[in-house]
């Protein structure tokens, strides 16, 4: 029993290229870590790279690219939306800094 639609992958050569690309991103991540940026800038850089990496993994490794577009359009917005809503906890995290009981 074969699935014709997901059968048309690009072949291993392409995946090896993607794999090399991902390793390069990991290399970049490590190298900027040791350039001792301020934590906030480092976090932004790392997050951008991590999302890039994850995007590549979802798109090619997990074959989302080779499925119908409807699948990606159903799954990814749901995840993005939920993670976006979770961001509403940050204002309270930052308040901790100024409102902590002094004795802690």
């Amino acid at each position, binding site marked *: 029993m074969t699935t014709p639609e997901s059968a048309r992958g690009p072949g291993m050569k392409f995946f090896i290229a993607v794999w090399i690309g991902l390793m390069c991103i990991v290399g970049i991540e490590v190298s900027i870590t040791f350039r001792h940026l301020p934590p906030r800038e480092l976090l932004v850089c790392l997050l951008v790279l991590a999302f890039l990496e994850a995007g590549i993994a979802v798109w090619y490794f997990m074959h989302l690219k080779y499925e119908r577009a409807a699948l990606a359009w159903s799954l990814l917005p749901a995840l993005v939306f*939920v993670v976006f*809503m*979770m961001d*509403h906890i940050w204002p*309270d*995290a930052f308040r901790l800094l100024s409102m902590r009981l002094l004795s*802690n």
Partner: protein
Amino acid sequence: MSEAAHQHGEPTGFIRKYIFSVDHKVIGLQYIGLGIVAVVIGMILSWLMRLHLGWSTLAIPGLEKLSPTGAPANVMTPEYYLSLMTMHGTLMVFFVLTNVPFAGFGNYFLPIQVGAPDMAFPRMNMMSFWVTFTAFLVLIAAFFVPGGPPLSGWTAYAPLSAVGESSGPGEGLGQTLWGLSIAIFCVAQLLGALNFIATTLDLRTKGMSLARMPFSTWAWFITSVIGLLAFAVLLPACILLVLDRVAGTSFFVPGGLVINDRMQPHTGGSPLLWQHLFWFFGHPEVYIAILPAIGIVSHILPAFLRKPLLGPRVLIGCLAAIGFLSYMVWGHHMFVSGMNPFSAILFSVPTLVITIPATIATLLWIGSVYGARIRFSCASLFCLGFISVFISGGISGFFLAQPSIDTYLHATYFVVAHFHFVMGVAAIFAMFAGIYFWLPKMVGRMMNETLGKIHFWLTFVGVYCIFMPMHYLGLAGNVRRYAAFTDDFLAPLVPVHQFITIAALITGAAQFIFLYNLVWSRFRGPKATENPWQATSLEWSTTSPPPFDNFGGRQLVVHQEPYLYGVEGSAGDYVMQTSPETVEAH
């Protein structure tokens, strides 16, 4: 990985057939049965609580046997009151409101309504139930451990729930069991949600396009999507809570706490973090309870109005909108929690916006009742009752959605009235409607209508007597979760509580009429025909009860919209979904 539905034949042994069954119908009944056990326990707990609230020194015979420490000389202690309250909330929210309308009816009827022989993953389905059952046992075990059940409420706010026994009896092993039970429950719900989604999308029979799915199927589908994302947050939250309790971490516990004159070892955590995680799940959970109820009522109502509902697409859109918005509003539980006050506005606006789809749905129901010739039966009465209590409960949401009013009404009986009406009673009414409507299909016997109508009237008037006065108490500032009302301003309100208690006792007793009716009808009720209500959806195109593979080897083909009532059909004033005849528009 992929499990073939129905490669396996019909099992013959008792255990494979009724206990570890992979048949979605048996599993659905198991969920409903578990829900009935939980609801009976939960209701008895609420009786005990109500008695204590009305007469706080009352001796309740036999209570000492249940808990010698919780009720010495049969008089409930304040801490035991809180324990019962916690267990009442947890049982009702998780094991009744989530289990019955969603997992119970959903399991039984979702595959049938889309014309499938079983769920997409029958073995995983069986696992979901037994994991749920395990969660139930773990929770009930809390009654029998030293210290008794936890007393921190179904919301288990840290640090009360996280620091262990020193903060109160029941906060020992009982609270740990609570955390474990809920974590296990999350796993079961996640598995169940996967199954529902795959079944709805993949196993629809020929002609059952998404647009032709009944409201109930839509509601179960949308609910499973909500559950998939919401329980995924509660699961790690409960695990972290248990870690705080048993492994010494401090996720939710700040430093410098002195409890019972003892310095706590924790440092640096945040109690608000637990509330955020809990309510991130908790608010969608409210819709996990109520959306299937809305779906069930919308499914049953047309069969008794003998006309289709107004704007079916709009109604489904409302369900989806409510599901979507449910993730944007969890902070309205936390207006006065010490959350950043700017966030309050951010959460308040979408909360108020939810009233728009909810109002549209309500108006659609009311508008559908207009101009109908209603067939009054227990099922339709409970549907109409549902609309009424849904309005009553929804209206108070206007108040609680606004932080400026919530600052007065938060944690009062106004809130208790609100969520009991809109989530508890409304969903319970839908369950009753579902049982009166579907029991003929599930067991092949009709229920007794006279007993059912007595049950309806007592329940309908009863819930208003119980919960309407709570609004007034809330406006008077009556604080919830109090074991007794000793404050100067609360003492004069006790007569109202006594009235509520009496109403609760009577209403609760009326439920035994229902249980009797259920058991009696199961064995002695008149035999049900294939389609006793002259309804149109696929579950009425098979025998009552349906055979193992639902349709006896037939592969149904769907030709019609789901609710063709009040038309000229070959069978009468309705056209079945499977009927190939052409129907003229009304």
